[in-house]
């Protein structure tokens, strides 16, 4: 089985797996990370999002062989070295922007990515930026508030 050297949350990891294993399964099953979630495996819901070189992407449809030397950041890797949460994470807590929270990983990752590109998005830009991310508990109005709050605190 091929070996892959990955850069995950600032450290180097080696994983031995089949080349078609999606990144999501590598992160959850091999590296035991909890952030990225399985929701659809079809790039339709955003639950599995991670940052690939700083941009939010679905990890369920990216085979490990395609990752190469990209830098992967998961939810666990957003806090700084002293354990301080990213302003987006803080904002989600302050706004209590979750019910079950299963979608929250994707929401946070997509928001971090959005705010990097557009530090002061309008409400409709936030909505567009999160279009791929589904939330069945329907915490969307709070999630929008959380992104607005994070934009202020960044």
């Amino acid at each position, binding site marked *: 089985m091929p070996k892959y050297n990955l850069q995950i949350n600032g450290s180097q990891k080696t994983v031995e797996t089949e080349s078609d294993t999606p990144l999501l399964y590598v992160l959850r099953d091999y590296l035991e990370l909890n952030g990225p979630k399985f929701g659809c495996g079809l790039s339709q819901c955003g639950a599995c999002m991670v940052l690939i070189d700083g941009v939010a992407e679905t990890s369920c449809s990216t085979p490990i062989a395609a990752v190469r030397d990209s830098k992967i950041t998961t939810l666990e890797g957003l806090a700084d070295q002293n354990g301080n949460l990213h302003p987006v994470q803080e904002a989600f807590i302050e706004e209590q922007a979750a*019910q079950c929270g*299963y979608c929250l990983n994707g929401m946070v990752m997509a928001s971090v990515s959005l705010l990097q590109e557009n530090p002061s998005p309008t409400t409709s830009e936030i*909505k567009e930026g999160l279009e791929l991310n589904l939330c*069945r508990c329907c915490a969307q109005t709070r999630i929008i508030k959380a992104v607005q709050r994070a934009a202020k605190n960044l």
Partner: protein
Amino acid sequence: MIELPNTSRRKFLRNIGYLSVGFPLISSCFAEQEQKIAERKNFYGDLPGSIRNANAVNAWLQVLEDGRVLIFSGKVELGQGIRMAICQVAAEELDLELDQVEVHLAETGVTPDEGYTAGSGSVPNSAMSVRYAAATARQKLLELASEKLNTTIENLIFYHGTVKTKSGSQSLNFAEILNGAQIDMEVKKPIPVKVSSDYQYVGKAIPRKDIPKMVRGESVYIQDLRFPGMLHARVLRPPSYQAKLIDIDFSNLGTSVAGILKTHVNGSFVGVIAEREYQAVKAVNFLKRVAKWEETTALPNEAALFDHLKSIAEPAQTIRNEGNFSSVNPENKTFKASYTKPYLMHGSIGPGCGIALFDDEILHVWSHSQGIYPMRRALAAMLKMDEDKIHVTSVPGAGCFGHSTADDAAADAAILALAYPGKHIRVQWSRQDEHTWEPYGTAMIMEMEASLDENGKISAWKSDVWTDSHSMRPDSDPATLIDASYLENPVQLRGRGYLGGGHRNADPYYSFPNLQVNAHFFDGPLRISSLRSLGSYANIFAIESFMDELASQAGKDPIDFRIAHLQDQRAIATLKKIKEITQSEPLEVNEGIGFAFSRYKNNTAYCTVAAKVNVNQKSGEIILQKMWAVGDVGQIINLDGIKNQFEGGVIQAASWTLFEQVHFTKKVIRSEDWNDYPIFRFPMIPEVEVHMIDRPEEKAEGGGEVSMPPTGAAIANAIFQAIGKRVNDLPITAEKIVG
């Protein structure tokens, strides 16, 4: 009495001599301030069903070694924040700080059997049981402390986990008072409970403790559980409901997919266990190609579904009959309207997951089921095992909104764990299986008829409802679990569950002199069970759309018209409040605001919803701009929690109303993923504003389902206000607007 396998508690009971030495952890803050002593009043009302079934204090509450309190609840966390609500109630009665309370949610053999976590029943049942148990415990702790400290009860106060004398000179924490014992007395009325005006926590917007964990990516969900040596399994579901396995050739599986440890066939049940999760995914995809099935599924034509449902319905049952519907004055104007609702999905964002381990004696199961005790009964019946040999622990999953696939995934894991003992077997469902095999909320037909007298008041009303069951939750009938129908000796469903959910809220809450409600039950073509708010969503959609139509026929303002038919001041208050907050909302051409009201189950919480829409008459495009909800759940436990539930309910029901419908062919469910079954995405999300009317003296009701029923009709009525068109068939799509 319940058994107590929790080791730390056992240890506590054993080691009491050592432990009673004391814990100085909080004593330092004693003298800080003279605490106000909260007033208490005796409670003589009805005790909730949950505590009547488990009425010893220690079934609900135990004191830990360090004097903190551990609460047991048989309910599960579904994202509704029940853990925090229970924590608030317990901390309130015992004057604890919130982090001095731990809450242990459903586990067989540990927590009380509280059935299902459903029907907005967790606060009135579980949280209230905890309140009465905690208040009883408080009284007992006072008595014991007064003996130990040799002082009167009047001279004692509770302070952050200790009972101290008023002067502060002596104090004991709860563990010291109990000296190793637990309080096993019965919870009996009268129970001295804190008066609501002295509440510190209850009614406040207290942040949940689990959200920081979620945000950090800590282990929260069943999907995050990892046991040493755990293996991954998948089940190959049949291609359609009635398919039977004829043949499956495993010979090339091992060479095509690495890591396969076991395949297991039992009747039409096919499972595969692998070392790694993605190997199991690939294995099941491989098996899909080589399995041969005999297919006899024959679903009705989707386009003629409602005719079909009427044709298979049993004779009508009259649910309510007051006055005489047919006797109304022939001079009155009569009106009729018919409404339909398609099959709807729960559509959890996280598909079902179950983990099981058979250790050669006990089958351990981890599940996000809404009812672990009832599920255990179903598992025991399906597996022909003793219930005592199955131990189920509840672990949160993604929000499920009723009976979805959690129990089925647990059953899959249980079957495979028995076939491969000694290892934790984790089964994760795919998105496609989740979409096509979950038990939907049934399709329904509602026909309404009413007559208006010369003063524009309703003199007679008739509701006819065609519905399948809304309650096929696993319990003693194993056939409620999918697997039971596909094993070698398949079992047939024994019955159609509780049917009352179908006509829930079909009898209007308004007072009409003549009222008739008829239910026409059918055994429909698709798998169904409980979906959030059961029949209420469809019934209130029909009733409140019809009320709106009658108001305009009578030439009355829709809110005044409703108020004129209501007697309950709490109901009226929600309508008045919504009028007040929406009346200055500006409206442009093709925009309208619609209203709808309901009291959930006609005897719990109240909600009035307003919706503002903009409709493009040419394209039919509907933009839902804003929604308002005014709620009254009686006494509020957690203000932010209840608002969150209301907001979520309004948006989810709006998604049902505008987008959702399960599609099927003659054989299979066609709605296989989020492209075939669209739900709300961010760009369409309306602004939502929730106002709660707090009534601290009224009974606390749950809020999980309350805001959903009025939402559909509020949107339909807003569309009518905007463009003068009524759409009575859900979902309300652009085609129906222009059609």
